[in-house]
């Protein structure tokens, strides 16, 4: 030992322990992982070789045996596997085709999220002495293990700029057809209480086509606009995920909203909107996420559109409008000269925009001005950073009263922390973001007939280009949790409008979907 004895024993043990603790263990784990991977790969290859050498072998799937699906309706499983059976096909399979078809069926089972993954699959030839079998017949065996049918969770949650504690009860495969019942109760910082129940079922045994219905009751504080919003309502929607990617949702929503418990200093605009209103609307949401990682993207594109029609014609209710929103985010890896492979540096840009267009309610001829519940809010750590929550747009006194039109954009340069691997969920970012939130201008004509509203909308849209948007810029640290992204930013507002609330200095943000 070269080390002097004095600092001796302890130091050595310490060192040993530390090494064991960090590096050695990590290396061991990595080696084991690699070995496991190699073994799996080999098995895969062997299987692949076997199949490919026999891939053109003609075969017929005579039986599919499903074992272990105790709580699943046979009829429901038949909906998935009946079309695969050779008896229902007009031409025989090759072995490769047969395996392909079966694995498509299995992937449907995976998507249902009611069985443990992976689902083991085995192929056998039926007993040749059985008189009903033909020489080309194969039998498929699927060994399912059902996931627990009732799941209770309690915990704390972080969403877009809010924290909450929740109790969640999930019932899987309730009626044996992949149906899900979800009950949720949450108490939180901004959402004072929220109760939600929903029922979700695959349509025609298709996990990519689901029908969902649900109801909610909640009470949310909106301190930026001096009120509390109480919601009671329900929805029903059809969710469809076509094979090419992306997801559609067609929904009907009926919500009774109350703007209540106004703060003492609430502005006249909020006071005028206090009270009840019922929104009855149909909506369509389309989203497609091609990013490599939704929280820390380095490449890929995310797009989302939302269309909503409320109160128009037979929809009734107390509010009538058409709403359109678009959202896009793109990420590009940035190559650094002299560095091979992934650099971990990426450039992301985000864009969001929305328009709320008032419509006449039912059969009335004039449209009513929008309400605080329906108008957009902009500003805060999850959209335009460097502003207070809902800090952009029209303010009546200290209340962010929202706007009918918005556009916001952001450009972020993400780079890995020095001496921290690019695989770790940390990044530094430099950003510039900005946006505008505008109320629909008063039309020059009297009243709110469709011609005047159109004129007002056009002049509001052209107002977007009047002057620079409200902008802020800054630097920050990003940490991607498994479910959310945390940001600590230092920022300064560059361009503002009077009444808008910029934020100088440090701000903390947590969110799932950030601009």
């Amino acid at each position, binding site marked *: 030992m070269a080390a002097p004895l004095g600092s001796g024993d302890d130091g050595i043990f310490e060192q040993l322990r530390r090494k064991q603790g960090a590096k050695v263990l990590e290396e061991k784990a990595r080696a084991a992982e690699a070995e496991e991977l190699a073994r799996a790969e080999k098995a895969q290859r062997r299987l692949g070789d076997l199949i490919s050498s026999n891939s053109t072998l003609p075969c017929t799937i005579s039986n599919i045996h499903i074992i272990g699906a105790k709580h699943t309706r046979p009829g429901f499983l038949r909906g998935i596997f009946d079309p695969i059976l050779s008896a229902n096909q007009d031409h025989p399979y090759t072995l490769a085709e047969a395996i392909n078809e079966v694995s498509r069926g299995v992937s449907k089972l995976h998507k249902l999220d009611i069985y443990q993954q992976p689902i083991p699959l085995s192929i056998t030839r039926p007993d040749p002495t059985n008189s009903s079998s033909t020489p080309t017949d194969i039998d498929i065996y699927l060994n399912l293990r059902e996931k627990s049918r009732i799941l209770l969770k309690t915990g704390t949650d972080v969403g877009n700029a809010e924290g909450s504690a929740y109790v969640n009860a999930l019932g899987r495969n309730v009626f044996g057809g992949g149906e899900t019942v979800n009950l949720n109760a949450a108490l939180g910082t901004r959402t004072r209480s929220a109760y939600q129940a929903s029922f979700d079922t695959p349509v025609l045994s298709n996990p990519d086509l689901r029908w969902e219905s649900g109801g909610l009751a909640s009470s949310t504080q909106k301190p930026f606009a001096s009120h509390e919003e109480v919601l009671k309502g329900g929805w029903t929607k059809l969710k469809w995920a076509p094979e090419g990617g992306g997801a559609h949702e067609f929904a009907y929503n009926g919500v009774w909203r109350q703007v209540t418990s106004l703060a003492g200093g609430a502005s006249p605009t909020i006071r*005028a909107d206090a009270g009840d209103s019922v929104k009855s609307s149909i909506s369509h949401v389309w989203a497609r996420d091609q990013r490599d990682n939704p929280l820390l993207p380095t490449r890929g594109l995310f797009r989302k559109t939302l269309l909503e029609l409320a109160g128009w014609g037979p929809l009734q209710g107390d509010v009538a409008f058409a709403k359109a929103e678009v959202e896009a985010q793109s990420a590009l890896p940035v190559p650094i000269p002299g560095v091979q492979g992934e650099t971990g540096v990426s450039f992301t840009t985000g864009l969001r925009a929305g328009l709320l267009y008032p419509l006449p309610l039912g059969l009335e001829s004039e449209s009513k001005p*929008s309400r605080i519940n329906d108008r957009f809010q902009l500003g805060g750590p999850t959209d335009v950073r460097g502003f207070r929550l809902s800090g952009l747009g029209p303010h009546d006194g200290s209340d962010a009263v929202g706007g009918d039109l918005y556009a916001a954009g952001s450009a972020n340069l993400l780079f890995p922390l020095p001496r921290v691997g690019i695989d770790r969920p940390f990044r530094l970012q430099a950003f510039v973001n900005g946006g505008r939130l505008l*109320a629909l201008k008063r039309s020059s004509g009297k009243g709110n007939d469709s011609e005047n509203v159109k004129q007002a909308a056009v002049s509001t849209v052209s107002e977007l280009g009047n002057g620079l948007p409200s902008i802020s810029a800054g630097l920050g640290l990003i940490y991607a949790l498994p479910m959310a992204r945390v940001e600590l930013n230092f920022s300064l507002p560059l361009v503002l409008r*009077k*009444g808008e609330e910029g934020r100088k200095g440090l701000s903390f943000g947590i969110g799932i979907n950030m601009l």
Partner: protein
Amino acid sequence: MPKDASAPTLAATDPANHARTSAGHAESQPSRAPRLKTPEIVKRVFDRFPLRTYEACELPQGRTSSRDEHALFVFTTQADAKAGRSSYNPGCLKWQAYLRFQGLDFVTVPSNNHASPSGALPYLLPAEATSSGRAPIPSTRLQRWLKDGDQSGAKRPQDRGSGEGRPSADNQMRYDAYLSLLDHKIRNAYLYTLYLCPSNFDSIARPLYVDPSTSNSLARLTVSIQLRDAAQAELLKQAATIDAEVLYQGSCQAFEALSELLGEGRYFFDEQKPGLFDASVFAYTNILLDETKTWKETRMLEDLRQFGNLVKHRERLLQQYF
């Protein structure tokens, strides 16, 4: 010295903050982290931001009333508000009438309980020009607000004092006794006849209180049930059971007592001008005797009609002030 010099710069370059403080809203202050002493140089750099400030964004076109008049938020219809007609809610009409008696210039704005700082209408939003700013004044503080004479900008109430409606000190006990007749006997019977008589609920309460809030029948049903439950709970606070006969007899006796008190006088307590007590009586007699309202169960107004001087009192005030 440098500190003083930098203060105006802050105000000049940071109008967002400036607007905030001048709006007098303290709520967002705590969210700003406890301020450490920022070094002067950092402060000076910060003060340069934002680099550019544009004019404020236009407010959405809402249903907000004009901001340079006193606005009394009451239960009323849009048309009635425009025409300055009386509110259909006794609690609101009491103060609407009283402010009229006092000669205050104000407009009425249709509203609902959700909009009120105290959870109940009416409340008054003073004109923007007055020193009390735009802080709403609940009905319980209206009298003091009038007394404090904080209505600069709009027309001042004329001849305050003589028609205060407050009797001399020795009459205070009598005043309180009669007031409790109104606040209990008459109010209870009124609550019963309006909310708990199904026929009156359908012909009067539903179109006035329920239908304007929403067009959705399910929400209307819920609101109706809530209203009736609230009325029932209010009545059960004062008696173990709800007996219509007892309530109606109580209100009839109260009317009789009030009629005797009024006697041949023009106003209660022999005042020269109507005061708060007149307003309180008028608040009930007006809605009961209003020909445009179709009471289906008429027991209470028939009781009232027996007392000609109360009917005349109502007509007199209606003609003079509405």
